[in-house]
Every structure is written in structure tokens, then in C-alpha cells.
């Protein structure tokens, strides 16, 4: 909302406060003032001139030589390049020594040999927003009204000695979509009075009651609560007087003609949108406010033919819809140059209905903007009367007697009670009853004292945002000043602050992995369906959840795995010559078994890791090695160890998107067998997919943190340090290449029993020494007894049993 201070001062005294200061005070009281615009962009020394004569320049086709009277007693000779300059016009003349915007200074000059004693100005040269002017005035010089007095300073004539504050209104303060609303706000801030406009006299047509010529009815009583109209006759359509045009232009509204300008002016003044119909084009002598019929069509003022839906509110005459209520009028009843009779509408339409209609039609107007936010019920009639009086005064109209109206109920006046204790208790202030009362007075809220510290506040209808005590408390707070509210710290019981176990584990893993050399990433939750297809992740059967109105196919479904975006991350970095990508992400995936969810999807916190390229940057001490499967597995081992999970079991799988020979599902819990739960999976990205994304060998793992936490062991129990010596034995066996070392290890542990303290794989060999199709695996075993020193014989026996078991189960041969 653009608020001209000149206009505003019709209703409230703003003298003695600089525009910038006022803007700051308004902002600090709750309405952000975005900008303070000086309307005069640097114009001085420009006066109204009368073009006495215009002659062709002797040496230039496109130039005119004008004799101009500027009231100085001597005609000025001015050379002008505009096509539209003509004798008899009143024009703005920049005298020699005048200043124009952008630092332009007018000097005596010679143009093609002819002296020019000043310049006739265009609107743009005066710094006016010429988009608000009619086309013909945008192109040439600005032609001023005939009655402009010669010699008058143009700054005063065009009301450029003005500042305009741009209010950035929050949705609750639609009362300030009007100059009067702004005036009440400024009055409250400055503790000053408000002067309401006088509607003025309404000369009568003498042709009887308006109600006898037009009837008004409301059929759609839910969408319209009040419809009022006046019939004005004998108007003459013409440009508005300059003062009215100046006001509208200061507000950023384009002047059109006197009737339309008056409806806009009063809408800006009261916040009540008005509409003027050409009464002669209203058929059947009646207005009905009803819902549109299915398929009903109307051509709106913007010359677009629109088809209406049956829940859209229209204004109809005896035969057809003549306006889309609150949104836009129809072309068929538009006020045109020949219009003489006006049916002037002032109504209260339901905000929700207007909002829906305007959205659906993609048609927004200054009127719909105000109706959407609900207009003031008490402004309907005053605005109508004000506009009718202006139409009579400015456009020479006369009013048929009386208002024609239909009304559905009457909004009840609102009184809100509150107490001083409540106010101070809510704000932490120590206000007195007198201070509170003074604030209500500044707001022009009538208030009565109730009992010792109570107030009954009569909320004016213009403030529809105030419905209960806290709304009044906010009014008090903002006018008292938020800065004056003290600072305190809550009393009451102390509470322990904490993270939940899940949150603490996520944080621990985040820190663990980042300190282990991985970068944490954050990627989008929305993805492309094809990404899920090529990489279904853990949940092959899960259907991705789609957005109803995605912004793009690229981001149209919710992710079911974190991996696809990590692949994008790797590709993104590789395109920027960052080839070594060791990253992880902690984030949610979204799963549902329904195509159209009727309940909220399951959200699982996942951890995903992606490794590609080298383990670390090149170093003088040795070659930087490429990452492989066991680097990824090592990370998962580290996480499991950190979380006290010791029974992770890896089973080869061949899921889509992964290398069929280098992928495993990981299960934890329930020891080695039943009762275990799938934690996630790990593997090498399928080479075809890696190639498609221009990636080197890439390894990924993804686990469900919920599962991990369920099986984690958070208890640390000290075990006594060993008192008896350990005996180490190594064991190298040759087995078939397909034998899983994990199975060998399990067998060793099972056979070794309590005596076997630990076993490590320390060597793996394939090659000519062990024969084709075989491999040699070397284990380092440590035996120890808790209660005594083991004898060599005991150890040998146990060791031999292990050798036997491996031989029996895997055909393992002791390596010579």
C-alpha cells in the first residue's frame, strides 16, 4: 500500500515529523515501511507555460519553435522536439536555471541556429512514473489542464512536494489497505486525532426514488452479506481534475476517467472497493447477487471471455452476469465515453469466495485483494455516499433519491474484556490502568473501566483482526513499545536438557565419520522416478510417494534411498575435477505401501556412504590407493564397533544397481541366525551405472539407523585384565577359492570355544603356489585361559581340533 503523506494529512496531522522518522516509527510499531519515496525527483524552476504560437524550425523538420508565456511579462522562445506540442496548450516549462531529475540543469542554448530559452518537459523528464499516464502523454510533452494558471510552479501543481511510504502489510493488517486505516495507525503512533472525510451534498435528480428504477436482491446469501447501490444520472465522462489524478498517481494507480477514478479514489480512501455500471446497459431494472450457472460466460473488462464455475459469485442483471463479484466487472456494462447514468455498487462479499474465484480465474485486482481480506462492514455505506457525492461534484451528476440495498443480517459489535493483571502477566510489564487506557484512546478504541482493573473494549469494525484479549494485548505492547518490555528469565522448575538416544547416536556417527575423513552432505528429499527405478535401494517393492503438483519431474517423488543423490554428488564433483569423493549423509527416506497415501508414510533415518577415487591425496611416502569394497566395509565395521554391535553378518546378494559379485546384505541381531534383522547393504555400484554417470569404481553402503540403534549396546562393562599368559599360534590353510573367509572364521571361533581369545586374518594368497581354483588364508590365533596358564598340550589339542574342523567342513589343507 502506497501512502502519500500529502493525502494522509487530509485525515491526520503529520506535521513536525520527518517522513523518514515517521516511517521508522510505523515500522517499529508493527507495519513495515519498505521505502520512502520522494515524489519530487529533483525538479525546480519548472512553471506552467502557455504556448502562444508554434512554428516550424527553419532548419530542422522535427523541431518546433514556440513562443511561450510563463507569466514573466515577456514571451520566451523555446525550441521543442516533441510531435504533440501545439499552440494553445498549457505545458511545463523548465526555465533557464531550472533543475530536472538526474542532475540536469537547463541553460540557454541554440538548437540548429535558433535560440531556446528553456525547455518544454515530458512527464518522464519531470521524473513522473509515465506508466501511469495515458499513452499519448507518455510519448510527447506533458500537456497540462487548460485551467492551469500560467507561471504556477509545476511541483505544486502536480503535488510533487510529497513523500510516499510503501507499507508492507502482514495479512492481519488489511485495515491499512486504506488511507483511513493508515490514518488511524499513524494517529495512534503520534497520539493525534483523525478527521473523517465529509461526504458532501447529494443533488437530487428529482426523478424519484432509485428503488423504483432498479431493484437489488441477494440470492447467494452465504457469499454476500450486503449489497448497496446508488443511481447517479447526468454525469459527463471526462478526465479527472488534476488534484484527483495527482492523488491516484501518488498511490500508483493510473487515472482513467472521472467516474472510474472516483471509484478508485474512494476504494483507496475507505478500503471499500466500488464498481460503476453504465445503468443504461443494465437490463431488466434489477441486480441479483447469485452464483454463476454452470458454463455461464462473461467478457470481463480486460476483454477476456471467461467461463464461470457454479460456485463463483456474480452480479447479474435481469438477463445475464454483468460482473464477477469482487473480482472484475463485465465489458457489457462498462462505463464508456457516452455513459450518462451510473449504477454505483458498494458491497460486502465473502473473502473466501472472492479468493477462490480470483485464484481459479487467475484474475487478481485491487478489489479482489481487499475483499479477500474481508472489508469493513461499516464502510459500505459511507464509501458509497462519498463516491456518489464526488460523482455529483466532479462529473456533474445528480443522485436519484435513496440507497437501494439488500442485506443479510448485521455483524454484531464486538466488545472484548481484559484485565490489567492479564496484560502485565502476559507481557511481564508493570503498566498502570491509566497507561493502558491512554493507549486505547490513541487507537480510537472506546473503552470502559470494569471493576478495579478491568476494561471493556469496543473494537471498531475496521479492525477485523482483533477478536480476543491477546489481540488487544498486542496492540498495547506494540504502542507501548516492544523495546520497553523488560527482559526476564522464567522462574519455575528447572528441567534437564537432553538429546534423545536416537539424536545422540546420529550425532555420534556424524562426528565419527567426519573425523574419519568423510564429508557430510545434505541432498534434496525429492527425486526423479527414474532414479528410484535404476536404484531401488533397500526397498525394492516400496512405491515412491509422488507430489500432487511437483515443480519438475526431476523433483516429483520422495526418495526411498539416499544413494541416488550421493551418486549425483559424486558426478557433480567429478565434473569439477574433484575425483576423490568420500561422503556420507544422514537423512530420512519415505516409504509407503499405498500409491495414494491415506496415512503418513514411514520415515526412516538412513545413513549412506559413498566412496570413489583415492583413499587420500597423493603423498611422497607412497602411492595413493584407490578405494575398494573393504574400505566401505571397514567403515561399517567401525560404526558397528562404536555402537557395540558385534554380530553383523554379510550375505552376498544381487540387487539392481549393484555389482552382482560384490554386494552384500548386512544383518545384525539374533547372533548368527534367527532373530536377526536387515541393517542394510553394501556393495560396488554396478559398473554400467557407474559408467553412465562417468564415475570410477564406486562403493556404497546404506543402513537403517533405527535397526542399528535397536541392536546397539550402550552398556560398557569393565572386564578384568588377563592374569595368565596367552599363547599365539598361526594357521595357514588352502581352501577352494569360493569358500567364504567369514564362514572359516565362524568355524574357527565355534571350534576354538572359550580357549580361543581372538582370531585375525593376516594373509590372503592366490597364485601358483596353491594351485588354480584355490586360495591360502592365514590366521593368527590367540589362546588364553582366564584362570590358569595353558599348557602346550592343551593348546595343541585345541588347535588341532580347529584344523580338523576346517578340513572336514571346507576341505582345508594345512599349507606347507
Amino acid at each position, binding site marked *: 500500500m502506497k501512502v502519500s503523506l500529502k493525502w494522509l494529512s487530509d485525515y491526520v496531522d503529520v506535521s513536525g515529523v520527518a517522513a523518514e522518522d515517521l516511517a521508522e516509527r510505523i515500522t517499529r510499531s508493527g507495519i513495515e515501511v519498505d521505502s520512502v519515496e520522494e515524489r519530487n525527483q529533483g525538479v525546480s524552476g519548472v512553471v506552467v507555460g502557455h504556448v502562444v504560437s508554434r512554428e516550424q524550425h527553419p532548419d530542422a523538420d522535427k523541431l518546433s519553435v514556440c513562443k511561450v508565456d510563463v507569466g514573466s511579462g515577456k514571451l520566451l522562445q523555446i525550441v521543442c522536439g516533441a510531435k504533440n506540442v501545439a499552440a494553445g496548450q498549457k505545458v511545463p516549462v523548465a526555465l533557464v536555471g531550472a533543475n530536472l531529475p538526474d542532475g540536469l540543469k537547463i541553460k540557454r542554448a541554440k538548437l540548429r541556429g535558433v535560440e531556446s530559452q528553456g525547455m518544454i518537459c515530458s512527464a518522464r523528464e519531470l521524473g513522473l512514473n509515465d506508466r501511469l499516464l495515458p499513452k499519448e502523454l507518455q510519448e510527447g510533452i506533458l500537456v497540462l489542464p487548460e485551467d492551469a494558471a500560467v507561471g504556477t510552479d509545476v511541483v505544486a501543481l502536480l503535488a510533487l512536494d510529497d513523500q510516499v511510504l510503501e507499507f508492507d502489510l502482514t495479512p492481519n493488517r488489511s485495515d491499512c489497505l486504506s488511507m483511513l486505516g493508515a490514518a488511524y495507525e499513524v494517529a495512534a503512533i503520534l497520539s493525534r486525532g483523525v478527521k473523517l472525510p465529509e461526504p458532501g451534498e447529494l443533488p437530487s435528480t428529482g426523478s424519484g426514488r432509485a428503488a423504483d428504477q432498479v431493484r437489488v436482491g441477494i440470492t447467494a446469501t452465504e457469499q454476500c452479506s450486503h449489497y448497496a447501490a446508488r443511481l447517479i444520472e447526468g454525469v459527463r465522462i471526462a478526465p479527472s481534475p488534476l488534484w484527483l489524478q495527482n492523488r491516484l498517481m501518488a498511490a500508483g494507480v493510473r487515472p482513467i476517467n472521472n467516474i472510474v477514478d472516483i471509484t478508485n479514489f474512494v476504494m483507496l480512501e475507505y478500503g471499500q472497493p466500488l464498481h460503476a455500471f453504465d445503468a443504461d446497459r443494465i437490463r431488466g431494472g434489477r441486480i441479483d447477487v447469485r452464483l454463476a450457472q454452470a458454463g455461464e460466460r462473461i467478457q470481463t473488462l480486460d476483454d477476456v471471455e471467461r467461463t464461470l464455475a457454479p460456485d463463483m459469485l456474480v452480479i447479474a442483471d435481469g438477463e445475464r452476469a454483468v460482473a464477477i463479484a469482487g473480482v472484475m466487472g463485465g465489458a457489457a456494462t462498462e462505463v464508456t465515453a457516452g455513459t450518462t447514468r451510473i449504477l454505483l455498487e458498494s458491497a460486502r462479499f465473502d473473502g473466501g469466495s472472492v479468493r477462490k474465484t480470483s485464484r481459479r480465474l487467475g484474475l487478481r485486482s485491487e478489489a479482489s485483494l481487499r475483499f479477500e481480506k474481508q472489508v469493513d462492514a461499516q464502510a459500505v455505506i459511507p464509501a458509497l455516499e462519498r463516491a456518489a457525492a464526488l460523482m455529483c461534484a466532479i462529473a456533474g451528476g445528480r443522485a436519484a433519491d435513496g440507497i437501494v440495498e439488500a442485506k443479510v443480517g448485521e455483524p454484531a459489535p464486538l466488545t472484548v474484556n481484559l484485565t490489567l493483571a492479564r496484560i502485565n502477566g502476559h507481557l511481564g510489564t508493570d503498566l498502570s490502568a491509566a497507561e493502558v487506557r491512554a493507549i486505547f484512546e490513541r487507537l480510537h478504541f472506546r473503552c470502559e473501566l470494569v471493576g478495579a482493573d478491568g476494561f471493556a473494549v469496543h473494537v471498531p469494525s475496521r479492525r477485523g483482526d482483533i477478536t480476543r484479549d491477546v489481540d488487544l494485548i498486542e496492540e498495547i505492547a506494540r504502542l507501548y513499545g516492544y523495546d520497553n518490555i523488560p527482559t526476564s528469565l522464567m522462574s519455575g522448575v528447572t528441567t534437564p536438557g537432553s538429546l*534423545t538416544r536416537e539424536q545422540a547416536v546420529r550425532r555420534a556417527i556424524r562426528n565419527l565419520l567426519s573425523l574419519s575423513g568423510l564429508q557430510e552432505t*545434505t541432498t534434496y528429499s525429492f527425486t526423479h522416478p527414474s532414479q528410484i527405478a535404476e536404484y531401488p535401494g533397500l526397498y525394492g517393492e516400496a512405491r515412491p510417494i509422488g507430489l500432487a503438483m511437483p515443480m519438475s519431474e526431476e523433483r516429483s517423488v520422495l526418495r526411498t534411498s539416499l544413494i541416488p543423490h550421493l551418486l549425483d554428488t559424486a558426478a557433480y564433483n567429478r565434473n569439477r575435477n574433484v575425483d576423490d569423493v568420500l561422503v556420507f549423509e544422514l537423512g530420512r527416506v519415505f516409504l509407503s505401501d499405498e500409491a495414494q497415501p491415506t496415512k503418513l508414510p514411514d520415515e526412516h533415518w538412513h545413513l549412506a556412504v559413498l566412496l570413489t577415487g583415492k583413499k587420500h591425496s597423493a603423498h611422497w611416502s607412497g602411492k595413493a590407493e584407490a578405494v575398494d569394497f573393504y574400505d566401505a566395509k571397514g567403515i561399517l565395521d567401525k560404526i558397528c564397533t562404536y555402537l557395540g554391535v558385534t554380530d553383523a553378518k554379510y550375505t552376498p546378494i544381487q540387487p539392481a544397481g549393484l555389482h552382482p559379485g560384490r554386494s552384500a546384505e548386512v544383518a545384525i541381531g539374533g547372533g548368527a541366525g534367527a532373530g536377526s534383522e536387515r541393517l542394510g547393504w553394501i556393495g560396488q555400484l554396478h559398473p554400467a551405472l557407474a559408467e553412465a554417470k562417468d564415475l570410477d569404481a564406486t562403493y556404497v553402503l546404506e543402513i537403517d539407523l533405527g535397526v542399528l540403534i535397536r541392536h546397539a549396546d550402550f552398556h560398557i562393562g569393565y572386564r578384568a585384565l588377563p592374569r595368565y599368559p596367552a599363547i599365539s599360534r598361526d594357521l595357514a590353510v588352502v581352501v577352494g577359492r569360493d569358500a567364504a573367509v567369514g564362514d572359516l572364521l565362524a568355524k574357527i571361533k565355534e571350534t576354538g570355544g572359550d580357549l580361543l581369545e581372538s582370531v585375525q586374518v593376516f594373509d590372503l594368497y592366490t597364485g601358483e603356489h596353491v594351485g588354480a581354483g584355490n586360495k591360502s588364508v592365514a590366521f593368527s590365533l590367540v589362546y588364553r585361559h582366564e584362570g590358569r596358564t595353558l599348557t602346550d598340550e592343551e593348546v595343541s589339542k585345541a588347535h588341532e581340533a580347529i584344523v580338523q574342523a576346517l578340513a572336514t567342513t571346507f576341505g582345508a589343507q594345512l599349507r606347507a
Partner: protein
Amino acid sequence: MRQAALGELEQTANQQQLDELRVKYLGKKGALTEILRGMGALSAEERPVIGQVANEVRAAIEGVISAKQEEYRKAETANKLRAETIDVTLPGRPVPLGSVHPLNKVIQEVEDIFIGMGYQVAEGPEVEQDYYNFEALNLPKNHPARDMQDSFYITEEILMRTHTSPVQVRTMERMKGEVPVKIICPGKVYRRDDDDATHSHVFTQIEGLVIDRGIRMSDLKGTLLQFVREMFGQETKIRMRPSFFPFTEPSAEVDVTCMMCGGSGCRTCKQSGWLEILGSGMVHPRVLEMSGYDPNIYSGFAFGMGVERIAMLKYGIDDIRHFYMNDLRFLRQFARV
């Protein structure tokens, strides 16, 4: 013999020559050993005299030998260490160091400040019911602030949450009227914005909620002051401006003194000395009622901030998309305490 031996020992240059002399004089067939062996042939009077002399000679030789030996050992050690000299200016072997994402760094920092003030960290679903995201927050179905155009709906009733406020509602419901409620809620939120330098269709919020008997707006002010001082430095000041949120009344935007210029005015704060970083207010009685708290008994405050905005200010980041592009050259800059 004594003089001859000491003279020869004087001439030795290394351990080997020293060993040879030791054998020559003190060895089994050494000169001194020969003399001692011949003692038996001496008279009872001569024996002690010669014996004493022989022992003195022996001690003198041994003393010199061991001194020499020590000297050679030291020299040898010194040589060995000299040979082991390395270039201490060569780069160390890397112990890999990664980083926590800058948004999570900020979240963890904010969480820790509020945990220290007795808050629990609460979370809720990112896919939310319309009721929790809007209705229970005093944004009924026809409210202008909840436009279909602004939210990612999945069905009529299910959408991507547009703020973390539904977590507050869920927490109040779960608490069933118990007080105090003291939570902060970090998390991702979603809005239909085209991604550009200052907008992202997904971003991160942290909201806080306190409900108890007798909570006042001055408590909100005091709490936020304490927070910003810990977050941005003890000199930080706050300033509140009246604003509007459907779920709070009164509502306030909170500005803090610009951390770039300390309040004197700079480009970041557009010369105002202030930066807007928080929205806040007293919990709207409708919200309390709907979640089972009687607004005549209980009151509360809520506040919220954008993590991206704080991270951008804190680290001087100029484009919000950096947080989601995961350029490692960007992320690696945060591998610091």
C-alpha cells in the same frame, strides 16, 4: 710394562685395537697374566710386593681401557644418530579429516545452547498432516497464508511440512497438558520456491516452544537475548518489532546486532546495524486450546529461525544453493572446530 701398555693404549684409534691390547696385557696369555702366574716362584717376602704392583698396573690398564671404550661407544652412537637424520620439513602422512555439514554444525551449536538452558530436542515427520501443519496452528482451511501454491501437497490432507511448528503441536499433544514444555525442534521444511541464491525449496528451521504457568513476553525476550549472546557473542543485543504469525499473539520479528560490523552499519545489514534472524511470539490461545492447554492457566512462547540464514551470516556464504550442491571444495572448508 705399565708405561708401555699406557703408551700403546694412548695410540688406539678404535674398538678393535683396544680389544687387541686388552688381550695382549690382560688376556689369558697376556703379559700381566704371565707375571701373576709366575708369582708362585717368588719368595714369601717378594710375593705381596710384586702382587700389589701387578694389581696396580692391572687397575691402571683397565681404567684406561674402560674410559676409551666409553668414548668409542658415544662416538658410535653419535654416528648412528647422524646417519638417521630425516627432513623434518617433509609433509606429514595424512590422517584423513572430513567435516560435518555446515547446516548441521549450526544445528548442533544451537541445540547445545538450548540443551544447556534445559530444553529437550524434539522431532517429527517431514511428511505431515494438514491438521498439524496448519489447522492446529490457527491456520484454518480458508486462511490466506496457506495457499496450495506455496506448499507441496501429496494428497488433500497430507503435505510436506512447511515449517517445524507441527512438531510443537505433536509435542503438546503428547504431553497431555503437562508442564513445563521446553523444546526446540530442528528439521527440514519444504516450500514451493524456485531455487535461487536466497531461496530453496527445502530448507532447515529450528523452532522453540515453552509452555508453563505464568510465561511472559519478557521471558521470551530474556531467553532470546541469552541465546544470541551465546551464539553470536556476549556483546550482541536484540531488538523486537511487532509482526504477524497466525500461531502467536503478540508476534515479533527479532533483530540482532549485525555480527559483521557490530552494529555500526555495513553492507550485510544494509547500514542498519541490525539483522533479522528470528520470528517469535506468545503462543496464540487458539493453539493452546487446540492442543489441550487452558490459555487462562497456561501461557507460552515460541520462536523460530532459519538455519541457512544463520549459517550464511556466520560463515559469510552468499548463495543458499551451496548447502545442497555438496561441492567438496565448499564442504571441506568446514573441517574445523
